């Protein structure tokens, strides 16, 4: 068996697109924080590329995609042992498969960083994502995609559960240790540069076509389907968020529209290759409204998930995973086609992921809190992490 050149080209470019989501995330998040923390926040995304790439090729890939058992993949491919230029996964080179999957391993912990901007120690952040990548991401990835106990059960086209639920829930769990930003609740903490965030949303959407489209692992009809649903759902979600905000506050904000887009992207992720374009409209609309409510609700509960990682990736990921079980009609059947079993499988997947990710995150957080410490001092927080952690100022005359 040989590789198919067109599929290889498609997965390669998709991988590049997913990597591009990291600068996109850096901008999206970086624009929403205050000036004094923008580099710190962007660095959270960038350093994740560094740390997780190396971890992934050394051990992460093996844990996630080694044969292993129901829980974990094992050590057969550490240091990419046993893989060479001509190894094949499906119709593409294994090296390319490793890269594509690696991009997902990178972005997932980076998503978490949005909840904890402006107050986490940099070295603890690095330790956190490295541990989280091994303890949370690799197993869950193995369960769902790598031959573990959820493979072939819960539908997750491109990572609604593996990527978004795990990161969204972990963001919330980590707040147990990191609490609120100083000034949160007293004064409005305004985004320092909304144009950066809009640009970031643009990059994210662009990259997401690779994220979802590439998850077909071939330049085929399914890739085409995943692509069109990835266009439609975010469009619908952006409009839904905008409508909610317009009704509710009288002002349709640009950042709100962008946020709705991201919510739609999250929600369509597990469904992208399983649902029709018309179902994608519904998924988008529902996700936009659910995430809007989730974010609004946070304000009332008073916890400081600073950039709404749970409200968007957690709530959106859960919504998407469940709706996949409702609307699936292509290559799988969901509730609407009478397959209530699938819906239950989705629910099972969600519950397991929520519990596993939150418990593990609390454990990791606990250990780090007791050892290197998670939170910076009040003075450092006041001055801002750009100066205190990184010795930099983003903007100079």
């Amino acid at each position, binding site marked *: 068996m040989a590789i198919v050149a067109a599929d290889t080209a498609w997965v390669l470019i998709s991988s590049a697109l997913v990597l591009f989501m990291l600068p996109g995330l850096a901008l999206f998040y970086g624009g929403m924080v205050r000036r004094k923390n923008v580099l710190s926040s962007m660095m959270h995304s960038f350093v994740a590329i560094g740390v997780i790439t190396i971890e992934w090729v050394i051990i992460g890939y093996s844990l996630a995609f080694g044969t292993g058992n129901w829980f974990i993949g094992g050590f057969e491919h550490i240091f990419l042992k046993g893989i060479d230029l001509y190894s094949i996964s499906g119709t593409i080179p294994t090296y390319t498969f490793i890269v594509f999957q690696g991009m997902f391993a990178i972005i997932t912990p980076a998503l978490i960083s949005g909840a904890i901007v402006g107050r986490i120690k940099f070295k603890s952040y690095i330790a956190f994502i490295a541990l989280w990548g091994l303890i949370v991401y690799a197993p869950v990835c193995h369960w769902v995609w790598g031959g573990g106990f959820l493979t072939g059960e819960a539908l997750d086209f491109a990572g609604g559960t593996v990527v978004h639920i795990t990161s969204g829930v972990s963001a919330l769990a980590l707040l147990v240790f990191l609490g609120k930003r100083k000034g949160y609740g007293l004064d*409005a903490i*305004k*985004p320092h540069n909304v144009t950066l965030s809009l640009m970031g949303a643009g990059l994210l959407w662009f990259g997401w076509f690779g994220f979802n489209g590439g998850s077909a692992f071939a330049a085929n009809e399914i890739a085409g389907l995943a692509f069109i649903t990835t266009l439609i759902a975010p469009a619908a979600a952006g409009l839904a968020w905008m409508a*909610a*905000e317009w009704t*509710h*506050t009288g*002002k349709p*904000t640009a*950042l*709100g529209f962008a*946020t709705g887009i991201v919510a739609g992207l999250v929600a369509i992720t597990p469904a992208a290759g399983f649902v029709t374009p018309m179902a994608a409209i519904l998924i988008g609309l529902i996700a936009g409204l659910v995430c*809007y409510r989730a*974010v*609004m609700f946070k*304000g009332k509960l008073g916890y400081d998930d600073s950039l*709404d990682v749970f409200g968007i990736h957690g709530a959106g990921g859960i919504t998407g995973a469940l709706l996949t079980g409702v609307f699936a009609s292509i290559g799988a059947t969901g509730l609407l086609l009478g397959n209530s079993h699938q819906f239950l499988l989705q629910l099972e997947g969600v519950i397991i992921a929520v519990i596993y990710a939150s418990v593990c995150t609390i454990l990791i957080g606990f250990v780090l809190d007791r050892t290197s410490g998670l939170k910076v001092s009040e003075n450092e927080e006041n001055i801002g992490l750009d100066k205190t952690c990184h010795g930099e100022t983003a903007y100079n005359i």
Partner: protein
Amino acid sequence: MKYVIAIIRPERLDAVKRELKKVEVNRLTVSSALGYGEQKGHLEVYRASEYEVNLLEKIRLDIAVNDEFLEPTIEAIRRGAKTGDEGEIGDGKIFVLPLENVIRIRTDETGPEAI
């Protein structure tokens, strides 16, 4: 000589400059500032929640004038900066400080003629 500091709405800057030109006040320094005062009710929206912005964008003008120009200058700023006939909260203020000396760097002139 007086040193006049005026805090006005950004959107009135052009009007104020025009009025000042009319009274032949052709030199001034502009900077941006944030005002905090009576003015309320400017709501912004950030991710599903509204909040009140209480530091509002303002423009600050610094104008050094000779004494005989003081009144016209104040009048010009007033005309340019006032919203409608009634005025509105947030239209701003003018502060008049004593000025002891002015030096024009280029020519080394000092005092009233350097203004």
